[in-house]
């Protein structure tokens, strides 16, 4: 987005406040500075020389989960996520990014992952037979989230793939961060380095199809990597296998509500495949949240780093709704959402079982023909 386009957007904002409706940050704080409308008014003042671009305004730009719910309701089509990427770029260049974002950027550049874990430990969770990446057209791109805090998810996927004897490879310690968090922070040069290293590895192994359980990686692989690779989210990949008859499920008599994460949902438009996959499991009763698919709220997860208390309050609202729906379990297909809900559950009295979708599958999967 060019500077001119950005300025035009600022003046296009109708100050109607529709962007407040589904904004999880605003709906906790109640402050206009956390709405797109508020930010547009502030930027207008900055452009007109009435306010300096000070910390408060910078913070207001960063106090956003980049979930894009505001765009759904905006009558003038303002896409704050796109705008804020351009703004963050500019702030990054001017050295004006907030300390919390600076720290995340430093961790990412120093460790190559957002969890400050040693890069060569990325494959530590893998059974020894996967220690060396082998040649295969199918690559399971594990992601930092599934390799470090959530290797339960990665292990579940591995078990499913082994059960159906699927030919695939993993990069282990040679897998680099997809680049997504750095792109979001405005550090484009560094993210490109990571993209290049990964691409080189993909080509070396003869990879054609890449699947990942992380919607953030999925979004980045889809939009920032070469189109020579077929990119799939794990739910799309597994649904294909179900439809091809390669996977069968045992019965699972549970009432489940599915939570649409923003990366997979609004950002990539994947709403039905996870639902179809759940419905393919016999006896699953699938129910919906009041606001679902493109209207779903954000889980709060993207704010866990910068504003953890706020993030947990946001996540708790969804937990409460799931609880009130009387479900046995809430299922998401995003590690960030899963972590956000788990963090909220730790400090809340609300009891709901939470699962990242692949975690459900190992005991249910049977090899098809």
């Amino acid at each position: 987005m060019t500077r001119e386009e950005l300025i035009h957007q600022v003046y296009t904002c109708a100050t109607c406040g529709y962007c407040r409706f589904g904004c999880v940050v605003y709906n906790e704080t109640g402050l206009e500075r956390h709405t797109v409308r508020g930010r547009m008014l502030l930027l207008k003042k900055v452009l007109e020389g009435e306010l300096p671009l000070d910390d408060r305004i910078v913070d207001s730009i960063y106090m956003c989960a980049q979930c894009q719910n505001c765009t759904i309701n905006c009558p003038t089509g303002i896409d704050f996520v796109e705008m804020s990427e351009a703004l963050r770029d500019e702030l990054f260049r001017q050295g004006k990014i907030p300390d919390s974002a600076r720290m995340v950027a430093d961790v990412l550049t120093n460790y190559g992952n957002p969890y400050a874990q040693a890069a060569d430990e990325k494959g530590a969770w893998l059974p020894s037979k996967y220690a060396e990446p082998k040649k295969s057209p199918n690559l399971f791109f594990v992601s930092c989230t599934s390799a470090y805090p959530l290797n339960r998810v990665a292990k579940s996927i591995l078990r499913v793939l082994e059960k159906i004897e699927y030919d695939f490879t993993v990069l282990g310690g040679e897998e680099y961060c997809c680049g997504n968090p750095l792109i979001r922070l405005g550090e484009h040069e560094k993210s490109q380095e990571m993209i290049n290293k990964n691409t080189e590895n993909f080509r070396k192994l003869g990879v054609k199809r890449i699947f990942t359980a992380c919607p953030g990686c999925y979004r980045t692989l889809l939009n920032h990597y070469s189109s020579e690779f077929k990119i799939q989210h794990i739910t799309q990949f597994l649904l294909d296998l179900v439809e091809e008859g390669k996977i069968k499920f045992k019965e699972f008599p549970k009432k489940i509500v599915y939570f649409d994460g923003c990366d997979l949902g609004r950002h990539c438009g994947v709403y039905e495949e996870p639902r179809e996959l759940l419905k393919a499991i016999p006896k699953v009763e699938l129910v919906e949240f009041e606001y679902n698919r493109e209207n779903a709220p954000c889980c709060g997860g993207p704010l866990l780093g910068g504003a953890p208390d706020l993030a947990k309050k946001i996540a708790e609202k969804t937990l409460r709704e799931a609880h009130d729906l009387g479900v046995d379990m809430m299922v998401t297909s995003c590690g960030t959402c899963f972590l956000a809900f788990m963090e909220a559950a730790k400090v809340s009295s609300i009891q709901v079982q939470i699962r990242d979708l692949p975690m459900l599958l190992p005991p249910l999967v049977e090899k098809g023909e």
Partner: protein
Amino acid sequence: MTHQEVLELSQIVGEERITSDEIDLLLHSGDLAPLPESLRNIYGIKLPDTLVFPQDVEQVSAVLKFANQKDIPVTPRGAATTATGAAIPVEGGIAMDLFRLNEIVEFNPQDEYITVGAGCPWKRIIDFLENRGFQLGGYPSSAPSATVGGWFGAGASAGVGVPQYGPAGEQVISMEVVLPDGKIYNTGPRESWLFIGSEGTLGVICEVTLKIYPKPERKFFMYDFDSIDAGVKALDGLWRLKPYFLTTINSGLASMLNEVGMHMSSKPLIIVGMVGGDEESLKTRWRSVEKACMEGSFLGEKPAEEEWENRFKVGLSFKTLGPSLMALEIRIPVPELLPLLNELEDILRNERWGVETLQGDHGTVCAVIYMLADEREKVAFLNKFSYIITAARLAFKHKGFLFGVGLHNTSHMNALHGEAFHFMRLIKNKIDPREIMNPSKTVQVRMPFFMLAMSMGMMRGVPGLVLFGMELASYLPLGLLRFGLGLMGEGIK
């Protein structure tokens, strides 16, 4: 307010529910209309001293009690989607955002009512009810942001549902209101009317219980007409059929909508509507719709339904063409729409403009006149701003009135209400003798009419000079300016 007073207030609402940060005050000091800084100066608009987010009715009551004792102005605020300055805390003091009173408190499908907090956006209630097979008797087309308290504060006299069920005040079973002295008062359907349209000048609405209706079968229609005359005639027949939704779009608006990617007919007038009922009654109503629209061409149910889905967005979706937009709202009887549109052709011949009407109660329409503008071109923008006074003239001429009073239209109160205006002042004096509730609005004239007419007239004639004068005036001590204007305003009161 003194530092001590702000401290005391923070003890009442809790530290996390109050802010005096300049940025927050700034953002909570305006409304939908981009008011030129120079005009803010002329009005002498102050920033609020502090912004509070009371959590419940008890906190609202405690804040008002405190403000009343200390003579501090309080301005209630919903989503600030009004453009008349009604929600602007002109006199500073406490801006009270009702955001935290946003719960759906009780849903009773058996007895067919719902109780909601004043800060709840209408869309949340609409969605909640739709998912459970019910509908409201009325809501504004700004539903994704407009709040329950804000719409009732603004009068709730036009919108979706209104042509069928009448002004939304008739949907109110009871209200929980806090009076300026902090007393909590539960109204019945009749007393509620006192607060409907009072624009926050008599108290704070905290909770409202509304009638709800089982959602009927719905049928959508869209017609276009070869002449405005034929279209208005159809509209005059249609409102009598009590449709749930009824709106018109003139060719000027259609052309702007087409420019941003919609596919509207280019005929002089388009009518879109929806009627509901059971299978049998729907058939009869549908025949009546067809009869009323005999002179028009039916464009199908599908595009009409799309228009319905888009009903909250239509009026703003073309704003990028401005990128600023002036919106003037007047309420007139349906037959007056024809002469109004003809007159606008002449008055606005040098502007890019369009009109949308929303059906109001008792056969009136709220005509929203949209005009593209660019607020960065200050002189030209001021020139356009002066159409505010043209809108008032048109409203009176066409047997109607202004849609909302707020700040910008206070000077017309005498003309609007005559004797009743004095009666309204008596009520205000009785309920709010210390005049803490939203001062300078509605029943308190901030700027006398001749002053407004003069400045607006000059804005039209020599906007450059006005801008220069205003810029100059902004260097005067604000107090002096406010004192001068205040004196004149007092005179009128």
